């Protein structure tokens, strides 16, 4: 073999004149990944811990009301005497369960619908695109509220409601990315290799759309957590004793001046989780992609 054929490393090496990946940006991305991992990890740890240990039982109202932080109650108590730290821990569990559940529902509906839309042509394509665009025009929270108003509020209905609202976003993204993949030559090559459409979806389309879809699902997780908190804040979330952070915020509202920790603690917890997820997703974006070779 001729020694003249070189191994192209990063994508930039093939094009004469195209800038290669920036070394400083890569370091920044690692930092983002680590910070995101730490933030999300903290919340996940608390949620996992809550399954085996809580400082107090969730319904335990033995503490004195609206106490400040101390040895007995690390973050103080709420207006009914319940331990705030326990409530934060349980809230973490709810946030994660509803967030993941909603994203799961959104993906389970949105991805197949988006794939079908990608294969549609002509009037069917236009109709499906229009339908998705109309649904997306509604804020996720509004759609979720509509569902919950009809079905009544419970952990399950809230999860499904948010999931359904997210599915339109997932469907539209899936359609766009799948259409792009369908235009690639390796899809034509698969057809001439005798692979049927089902095989093409399984072997070529899904793996190639997954990086983009998964990043967006990660971001939608943050949206779902905030939607759940908002629903609970508005009193439309799962009823007590489920101590969602949103409901904690609503309950602490009236006493926020005298006992601020009651609102600050769940607020900070929300911020940590949502920002952490966004950073984590951003940092993971390039790591899992085999096509992003590192320049030597």
């Amino acid at each position, binding site marked *: 073999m001729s020694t003249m054929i*070189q191994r192209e490393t990063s994508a930039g090496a093939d094009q*004469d004149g*195209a*800038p*290669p990946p*920036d*070394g*400083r940006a890569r370091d920044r991305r690692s930092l983002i990944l680590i910070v995101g991992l730490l933030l999300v990890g903290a919340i996940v740890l608390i949620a996992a811990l809550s399954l085996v240990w809580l400082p107090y039982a969730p319904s335990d109202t033995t503490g004195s009301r609206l106490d400040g932080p101390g040895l007995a109650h690390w973050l103080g108590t709420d207006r009914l005497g319940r331990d705030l730290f326990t409530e934060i821990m349980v809230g973490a569990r709810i946030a994660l369960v509803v967030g993941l559940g909603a994203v799961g529902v959104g993906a389970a509906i949105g991805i197949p619908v988006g794939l079908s839309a990608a294969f549609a042509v002509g009037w069917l394509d236009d109709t499906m695109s229009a339908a998705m665009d109309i649904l997306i025009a509604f804020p996720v929270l509004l759609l979720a509220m509509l569902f919950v108003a009809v079905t009544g509020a419970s952990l399950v209905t809230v999860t499904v409601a948010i999931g359904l609202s997210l599915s339109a976003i997932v469907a539209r993204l899936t359609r766009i990315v799948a259409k792009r993949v369908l235009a690639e030559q390796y899809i034509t090559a698969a057809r001439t290799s005798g692979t049927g459409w089902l095989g093409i979806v399984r072997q070529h389309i899904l793996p190639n759309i997954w990086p983009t879809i998964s990043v967006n699902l990660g971001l939608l997780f943050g949206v779902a957590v905030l939607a759940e908190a908002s629903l609970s804040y508005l009193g439309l979330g799962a009823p007590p004793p489920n101590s969602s952070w949103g409901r904690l915020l609503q309950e602490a509202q009236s006493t926020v001046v005298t006992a601020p920790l009651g609102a600050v603690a769940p607020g900070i917890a929300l911020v940590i989780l949502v920002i952490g997820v966004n950073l984590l997703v951003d940092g993971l974006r390039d790591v899992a992609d085999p096509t992003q070779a590192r*320049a030597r």
Partner: protein
Amino acid sequence: MNLLEVASLSVTSSDGVARVRDVSFTVAPGERLGLIGESGSGKSLTAFAVIGLLPAGLKATGSVMLDDTQVVGAPEKNLVPLRGRVCSFIFQEPLTALDPLMKLGHQLAEPIARHQGLRGSALKRAVLDALDEVHLPEPERIADSRSYEISGGQRQRVAIAMALACRPRLLIADEPTTALDVTVQSGVLALLDHLVADRDMAMIFVSHDLAVVSRMTDHALVMRSGEAVERGSIGELLASPRHPYTAEFAASARRIETAFASAIARGRPE
């Protein structure tokens, strides 16, 4: 007195990879030089560095003296007077070099107005003359069109007209016909050849195609992996290459050419 003197030019990306390494060459007024190399050889980056148009993230070091002005590290205000008037550039893909929203006549009018100080109907006349000079039929229609409304070959002729509008002394053509059909290519190359000769311009012609370079220049610099590997007349590069890379490059081109010529010869009636 050289028009262009490039000494130890290097172009490095921000993560430290040298895309062009220690390249030196000169171009005298009226002289033509080919820059031959494959993708990734650094030939286009070298061309961009000469006119100070390196993409973001790439830094040039060394010296590029264009008409006694240092280009490397020079601020934009020093480079603007050079562009168009001393040195012009023709890009590979005219679609990206022309503004899709502006009518072509307006785009062409801008450099002409700047250089010749014309206005109004005199300017309009000059624009049509410029389009005529590049052998575009129906210059009024072309002037009134947008870049995507005309063919690739026509676009490249408009790009040539724009590059030549300010009467530059050096023309850099970066793979100007690679994106064109072969029958269109030969017309555009003939046009370039004629205009450059007519105006006594110097030219740097960048291409991966040895046959095309040999049509346009007599001397060439062979580049590979960012380095200048060999410089010589086309004849020398073909018949007595000194570097093994040049030898392989020339031999490959020669092989295809020979097979082609034999096929033609076999079919020729006696």
